[in-house]
Structures are given as C-alpha cells and as structure tokens.
C-alpha cells in the first residue's frame, strides 16, 4: 500500500491494455496546474473550458504523436477530487504506450497503481468507502444483480440507508447520554421514553437491513438448479427437457465439478446453471454414498432444488438422507403407470421438506420428457405463487388433493424458478460480503441488546454497550475503518479505474 503516502501525479490507460481498440482513454490525475502540460498539447490550454471536449495534437517536442480529444476536470469537480485530464486517443497499443511514456518520462507522472484513482477519490471524499465497494461491484460484476447493486451503492441509495442507520444510532447514543448527564433537566420518564423510542427505531432499521442479508447470496449470484433423485427417477429426462429450449449460448462453465453433468440455461434473461447429479450415481453402494455427500455439498449452495422420486423404485434410506434439505419442489414421476397410488402410499415422505409437490407422468419421447403433470402448492395454485416461501413439511403418505393445475411441466417449472428468483432479488439483498458481515454483526448485537437492556439498570454499562455497537457502525458507514479493509478493497482494483 505504498501509494497511500504519495500524492504525485499519476497516469494510466483506463480502458485496458489487452488489445488494439478504436479508442483508448488515458486518465491523468493530481497535476498542479494544467498549463504546466502545455508543451505536450497543440491546443492553447489557456483557452480550455472545464468539462468540455477539445481537439488537440499530442506533441513530443515537435513531433505529433496523435490527434486526440481531451476533457479537463478541475480540482474539486473531478472523479478523484484532483485536477484530472482524460485523453481519448487512438487505441493502438503501441500508440497508447507511447503517450503514457511521454508523460511518465518527461512530465513527472508515474503509472497509477491498481485502484489508485479510486483511492484518491475516497481520500478526497468524492466517494465513500461503501461507494468504492459499489464501484468495485459494478466493475467486476458477473451477474446482472451485482451490476444493479453496484450502481445502487454508487448512486448512494444503500449508502443513504447506512447513513440513516448511523444517524439513528447517534440518537440512541444521545438518549443514553442524556439519561446520564441530563436526567435532572429532562426528567427520568422522558429520558427512558427517548431511549426506548430511539432503540426501537434503530432496531427497525437494522432489522430491515438484516433482512436484506438473509438467504444464500451466492445462490443468487450464480444460481444453480440442482436435480437429485435415484437412478431411473427421471432426472436426465427433466434435465434434457429444461435444456432443450433454454440452452445458453455460453456453454463452457468454469469451475464445474466433473462429477456432475451441468449446462447453462437461460431463462428470462437470467443464466442458471442446471446440474444433474446423475454423474455421481453408481449402482455400487459405496460410490452412491460418496455421490450423496457431493450432492449434499452442491445442494447446500443451490438456488433451486428439485427432488425427483420414482415411487416404483424408491429406497427409504435414500430419502431419509435428505431430511436436512428444503426442496423447492418434489416431483413424483411415473404417475401414469398402473399401481402408482398404491406404490406412492407405501413411501414414507415424513423426512422430506418441500415447497411444492408435483406428480408427473413419465412418457418417454424423443427428447426425453416427463409430462403432463399435476402440481400442488402450499399457498394455492403454483402459477399464482407469490411468496413468502415457507417450507412445507410432508408427513405420512401423500393424500391426493384437488389437482390445481395440469399441463406441460417445463413452463410451470420455469415460472416457479423465475418467481423465486424475482422474490429473492426483489428483497434487494446486500451482496457485498463485508457489508453483510457487519450488518449481521450489528443485528446480532442489537438483538442481544434488545433482550438485555431492560435488565441493565446501570446506565454506564448500557452506554458502554452502546459504544461498542457504534464501532461496528462506523465500520459500515466507512467513516473510519480498520486499515485492513482498505487493503482488501483496493487490492481488487485494476489500473485506471
């Protein structure tokens, strides 16, 4: 982090140096005065209008290096808070390098370190710490959800909520201090009320932030649809069915475990990874056990969990292994076979938790499909499902209920998956790991506090506890954060951002 101590002018190509492009943008920041750079511009820099594009040649003594557009952002009105020049140059890598060299060798600039422009913006209060993290998210997003939240933090919405929390905390702290230093002036009852009111307000704000950290966020960032079930249950058929119309253009998935068959599917603008745990299943018991462990692992981070059960070939021990998992849907296949109901009644489903239950026939066709189906939802017809998502505990044999919907399975499943995704992302989850951790820490402390404070008759202890809460808050709002936070944030940046 050596660059923290150095305020010298910096330069970098902000658009990356990986290939030749039509245009590259070079950013210069922290120079004392624009006119000191006159030697390198054919344009008369005395005539520069701030925040306006000007056409100029870039000069190295008498040699014209390039014909460029440049914009000058004066100190206080720029991204970094310092004097900034942005040059739009021709994006040939040799050309870009030559212009960078011109400034580093002759004009006292040095190459910017990763994240240095943004660090200067933070230093000069052009961005808050949270906003810097938002920017990081925006620039490094690998999902549309991250993209939109990055923008949200950057534009200050989430940051405004943090500030509201911080302000509410300040009133809470003030209430405690008033009860100690001014209770004679204000009156004991009133100070008590002030404290209770401000704590309730604070608790409400932190609870609502906390609700935005709930759920498995990684499952939203790279959502996986996971199929589990025994051999011949119909997993592969369902896999192929879902894949058939929705195969993503992107076919290569980084980090896929070889044991699984997986493909990217594209449903209503969102990329899901469809995983068939078939690949781990073998008839040998030992291997099946290893397979189940792996299935458990992938289930733990899955976004949508589908269990398929063939009532004609079901092993009760197998089902029992999933007692800790909440499935999104349980599909019971082969419902068109004779003796379906009697076989179904034979199975103990009491271990299984699922939000939906579907019975589907198993009709093999060319593409391998299981349909049509009947679907049962705990909250009314599946298509009208609008959350909240509550687990449904099935105990005992499944009673056939009034079929709520008939039809092909594929559009139904897709709509359930999308609904769930919309509900979870509508809650506007906080994606930044540091924020999630601190919000949860504050929430935990406050709920402990909510339980305890009625019993704390010692105002000094109360105040000491409130102070401790405040340390975490300052960390969230980024007023003063431990140095390692800065380290980790800035190590994620690339040159020139």
């Amino acid at each position, binding site marked *: 982090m050596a660059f*923290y101590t150095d305020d010298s002018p910096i330069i970098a190509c902000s658009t990356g140096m990986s290939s030749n492009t039509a245009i590259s943008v070079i950013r210069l920041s922290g120079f004392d005065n624009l006119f000191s750079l006159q030697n390198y511009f054919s344009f008369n820099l005395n005539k520069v209008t701030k925040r306006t594009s000007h056409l100029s040649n870039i000069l190295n003594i008498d040699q014209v290096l390039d014909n460029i557009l440049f914009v000058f952002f004066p100190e206080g009105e720029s991204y970094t808070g310092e004097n900034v020049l942005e040059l739009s140059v021709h994006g040939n890598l040799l050309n870009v390098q030559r212009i960078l060299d011109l400034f580093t060798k002759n004009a006292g600039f040095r190459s910017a370190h990763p994240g240095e422009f943004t660090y*200067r913006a*933070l230093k000069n209060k052009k961005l808050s710490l949270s906003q810097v993290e938002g920017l990081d998210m925006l620039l490094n997003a690998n999902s549309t959800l991250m993209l939109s939240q990055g923008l949200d933090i950057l534009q200050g919405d989430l940051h405004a909520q943090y500030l509201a929390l911080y302000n509410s905390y300040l009133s809470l702290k003030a209430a405690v201090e008033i009860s*100690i230093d001014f209770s*004679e002036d204000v*009156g004991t009852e009133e100070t008590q009320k002030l404290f209770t009111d401000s704590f309730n307000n604070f608790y409400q704000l932190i609870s609502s932030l906390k609700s935005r950290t709930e759920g498995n966020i990684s499952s939203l960032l790279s959502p996986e649809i996971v199929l589990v079930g025994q051999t011949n249950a119909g997993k592969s058929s369902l896999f192929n069915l879902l894949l058939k119309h929705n195969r993503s253009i992107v076919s290569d998935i980084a980090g896929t475990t070889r044991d699984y068959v997986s493909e990217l599917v594209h449903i209503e603008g969102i990329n899901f990874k469809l995983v068939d745990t078939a690949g781990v299943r073998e008839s040998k018991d030992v291997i099946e056990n290893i397979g189940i462990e792996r299935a458990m692992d992938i289930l733990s981070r899955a976004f949508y969990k589908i269990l398929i059960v063939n009532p004609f070939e079901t092993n009760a021990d197998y089902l029992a292994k999933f007692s800790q998992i909440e499935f999104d849907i349980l599909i019971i296949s082969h419902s068109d076979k004779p003796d379906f109901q009697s076989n179904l009644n034979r199975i103990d489903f009491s271990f299984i938790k699922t939000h939906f239950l579907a019975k589907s026939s198993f009709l093999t066709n060319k593409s391998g499909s299981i349909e049509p189906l009947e679907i049962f939802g705990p909250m009314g017809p599946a298509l009208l499902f609008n959350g909240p998502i509550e687990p449904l505990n099935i105990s005992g044999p499944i009673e056939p209920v009034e079929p709520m919907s008939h039809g092909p399975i594929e559009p139904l499943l897709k709509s359930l998956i999308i609904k769930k995704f919309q509900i979870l992302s509508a809650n506007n989850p906080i994606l930044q790991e540091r924020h999630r951790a601190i919000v949860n820490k504050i929430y935990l402390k406050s709920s402990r506090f909510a339980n305890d404070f009625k019993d704390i008759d010692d105002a*000094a202890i109360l105040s*000491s506890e409130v102070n401790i809460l405040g*340390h975490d808050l300052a960390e969230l709002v980024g007023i003063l954060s431990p140095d390692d936070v800065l380290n980790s944030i800035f190590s994620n940046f690339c040159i020139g951002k």
Partner: protein
Amino acid sequence: MNNSFDILIIGGGHAGSEAAWISSQFNLRVGLISGPGASLASTPCNPAIGGVGKGQVVREIDALGGMMGVVADKAGIQFRTLNESKGFAVQSTRVQVDKELYTQYAEELLIGCTNLTIIREMVISVKRTALGFDILSSGGTTISSSRVIITTGTFLAGNLHTGEEQTLGGRVDCERSVGLNDLLSEIKTLPNRFKTGTPPRIDKKTINFSVMDPQDSDDSTRNFHSLSHSFSRTTRQVSCYLTRTNSETLSIIRANKERSPIFNGQIKGVGPRYCPSIEDKAFRYTEKDVHHVFIEPEGLNLETIYPNGVSTSLPKEIQQTFIRTIRGLEKAEILVHGYAVEYDVVDTSELSRQMEYENIPGLYFAGQVCGTSGYEEAAGQGIIAGINASLSFLGREPLILDRNDSYIGVMIEDLVSNKRDEPYRLFTARSENRLYVREDNTILRMNKYRKHLGLTTKLDFFQESILEEVEILEKLIDSTMFYAVEENKQHFITQNYGNLESNISLKELLRRPNLNPVTVLEKECLRMGAIFNLDVIRTVAIAAKYEGYIDRAIIESEKINRMSKKKINWSEIIESKNISFECKLRIKQIRPETFGQLQRIDGIRPATLAYVAGNLI
C-alpha cells in the same frame, strides 16, 4: 507591601483561589490580586458544587490537595447523590452551598496561608520583562512575578445585559476589567465572545413552598473531602423544591422575542447549549412548555432564592411577569434581576496541557476565561495551573493528567486540542473511560498525581493507607472461596445471593447481576471479621463489578482505535494538497500529535482522516 512574587494569580474566583491555595503549599511567595468589590471564591450563579461529572472533578481536586471539597462540605446545606439509580460509575455528588459561608470559609483558608498575599486591586496591564512579568495595578503599583496565572472569569471586557439595559461589568455590582488584549496584546482570543446568564433572585418570603415538591438533603451522600468523616454535616440542612413552567410562562416569553437581547441581536456572544436560558428553551423547543424549575436557597441567612432553570436576560418587567406564572411563585418578588454577561475568551488551543500559554512561557490561564463554565471546571484548571506554575518555578517536571483516568485530564485535553465554539462544560459523556473514572475510586486514580507534587502532609499518608487497604482487600476477595457445600449453599439462600452450584470466589459473587456488590462485600467482611474502611470496601466492590465491562470496553475500543495512539507528523500532513484548506488551518492551530487527537478536532473531515489513516498504514 512586597511587590515581587514567585507566582502571581490575577483573579480570585474558583480557579484563582485554587491556584493560589495549591501554589502556597509549595512554600513559594504567592500573590493573589482580585478586584476590590468581588469576594473570593464566590458563587455568583447556581449556589451548588458538584453535579454529574463535576462531583468527580471536585473529588479529583480534593485528592490533589485542593480546597474546593473542604469548603463545599463545610458550607453545604443540602447534599444529594445524583443518578443514584443509574449505576455506580455515573453517580455524582452535588452539594447546595450557603454562598456567604462558602466565601467566608474559602477566604479563611486563603488568609491562613502565611506565604500568600491577597491584593485588592484591579490590573491595568501585564508586561513581559526579562525575568517574567510586570503587572501594573489600578493603585499605581507595579508588581513583578516570574509566573502569572490569569483567572479572570467573565470580567475581561464584560458586558451585562438585562433587556435593553446594558452595563459594563464582570458580574452584577462588579466592575469589569480591561479586555484581554489591552492586558497583553500578544494573546490570541477567540473571535466570538462567550455569553452566559443567570436567573433573577427571588425573595424567599414571597414563595409558596407548600405547592412544590420538596427535595430533602440526603444523609447517605458522602462528603467531598477525603479526610472528613463521610457523612458528617457541619451546617444545618435544608430542602430544595421543584416546580415547573407552564404554557402561560412560555407564551409571555415568546411574545417578547424582540425584547430579548439574545434573539434581537443585542448579544452576539455564544451561550452554552447545555445550559440554555429560558428564552432559548422557549424558541428552540417551541412544542414544549413544561420545564423544571429548581428552587434553591442561596444561604441559611440570605433572603434570596435561586430559581434554577429560568436564566434570562429579558427586561425587568417581563422577568417579573413570567416568574409569577410559575406555580408557587404567584406572589414572588424579584430582589436581583437576571442578566446575561458577554466576555473575552482566550484561545485555549494556544495553551499546553500544563495550562501554560505556549508562546509566552510563564503565563498560565485557568477557569472561565478559558471558555469553560462551572465552578468545578474552573477550580480543576486552577489547581493544575497552580501546580504547574509552581513546579516550573521549582524547575521540576510538569504534571500532566491523562484523560483516561481523570475528568480534569479529559477537560484539559479537550480544551487545548480544540478551538471552542461554545462554553465548555464537563459531562460524563466526554470521557471514553466512564466506567473507570468514578467518584468512589478517586484516590486510586489520583494518588500518582498527588505523589508527583512531592508534598508530605496528612493527605499523603492517608492516601497511602487507603491504597494499602485496597490492595489487601482485593487479594482477599480473590482468594476467598465459597465451596459448594451445604453450609455455604444455605448462606447463599438466606442472603439472596442466588444458587451455589460450584465453587466460586468472593469476587465472582460480587459480579453477579442484580446484587449490590457494596452491601454484599460489607456483609461478607463482617462475617469474616475483616475490618476495612467502608470507603475501601465500596471501591473494591464496585471495581470488581465493573472489571469485566471495563476490560471489554478497552478491548473493543483498542480494536477499532488502535490507530488513535499512532504518532502523526502534523507539519507534514498540512503540506499535502489532498487536504482541504480549512482542515489544514485547524490542524495547524491544534498541532495534533496522535491520530486520536486529530480525530477529536471539531470540523476535521472524514476525508482528511482517511487520508492520514492511509498514510499511517
């Protein structure tokens, strides 16, 4: 008259008296020059000593060997423990004093010092000389001294306001002194003068006390002075009373906004937000009409009553009208009208933590002239200025109090590390270490500072013996075990100590929630036949109770503020162009040495902190 002193104090209020008293303990030649009309150590406003946070200061002064606690105990006519139900750490003593007796006892103490000369004259100017200072007095004499302590309170260019009436003076019926810059032109004053105010005094005979809530003196409140018996009283005790303002009171004030000097622009000085006048309350809290008014006697033989809470500078006839709307004051006659006073304040960021003006060695400041309010704050600075002027004269190391173990330390660091923009008062909230900086452990906290003075009096031997007793009792509670046997189990049940399931130490018992550690330890000492000073038992019991919380608070704040102790180089920081002009100015004025001090400067931007923090990594 001897015209040459080792230490000369200008001003005889609480700061000046305390400075003179402690300096005289060092056997130096001390002079105290005070205006002819003004009594020494007088209480011109609220006739009370102590209060939340301030009670701790009085005890700190007492442990250093000061006079305030001694005088307050003797002149005390109503003793109370504030925040009694809020936990030991924030409990504070407050004593209503008979203002005549207070001054009388203080003057007796000072006059009794044979090496202290009291000069009743005004000061015209202070000149620097090769050997120190020459002070020209109103009597035409020149007094020289190598160390000068200025404790002029509100007297420097003081202006009094009552409605449209303006008079020049330091307080009612007292001549003011010249402005600070006329005294010594090199001294930097704050650009904004400060303002404070006082309520009208009411004739005791015209008050109907029967409709007010009485507040009696509390027998169980401890005296300030550590060498006195804790609960002895030398003066007859009386009650204070509580009444309240109402909508009629406030509507009269609100209807006369244009006649209020603070709101019509006549007064430009900045008043304290924490001690608002009734006008402030009326216009700042427009939805609130009911405010407490404490009816406090000014003395056993005085006819005047101090109505605490209705400080005002409104015209006299309006004061009379609104006072009579208050329950119990319907027939009240005003004997002295309320007024506000504006005065010069020295820029305390020019002072060192020894209260010495950095650019003028040998010149010290203390008290209200430093922008504080309150007798205790003034006395606290006075004793530190007196001690350091004396130590400096004797060529010894200065005494610097740490903010972590004393409220005086908190106050002085706050003063010298900042430019004040309003009068400064101590609150417990100003201390980061409130669980430790308590009244009960004052001797433990202050003994090392008292030792630094190198004096050997009864007080020093007493403090040593208390420290020894504390050490013994601390070992005892650590080593005394309650084994989980039937006899002890039974004992726990009869005493309501809760269950005894496994062996615990006496210390662990003291930490149990919902137990009063002090009464438990008293009982257990008695049971063991161990005789300890009751104040020692109290200190040790409370310390045991808080120990865990204090450790936790320290760990938590260390975690976050581990940077605050890092040294910074302010002169390098202000060279950076990444810091705003305004911040640079502030840093230049304050010259912070650590990151923590930088953080505490008002108006330092987060960006500056982030920048400096970045540089510390």
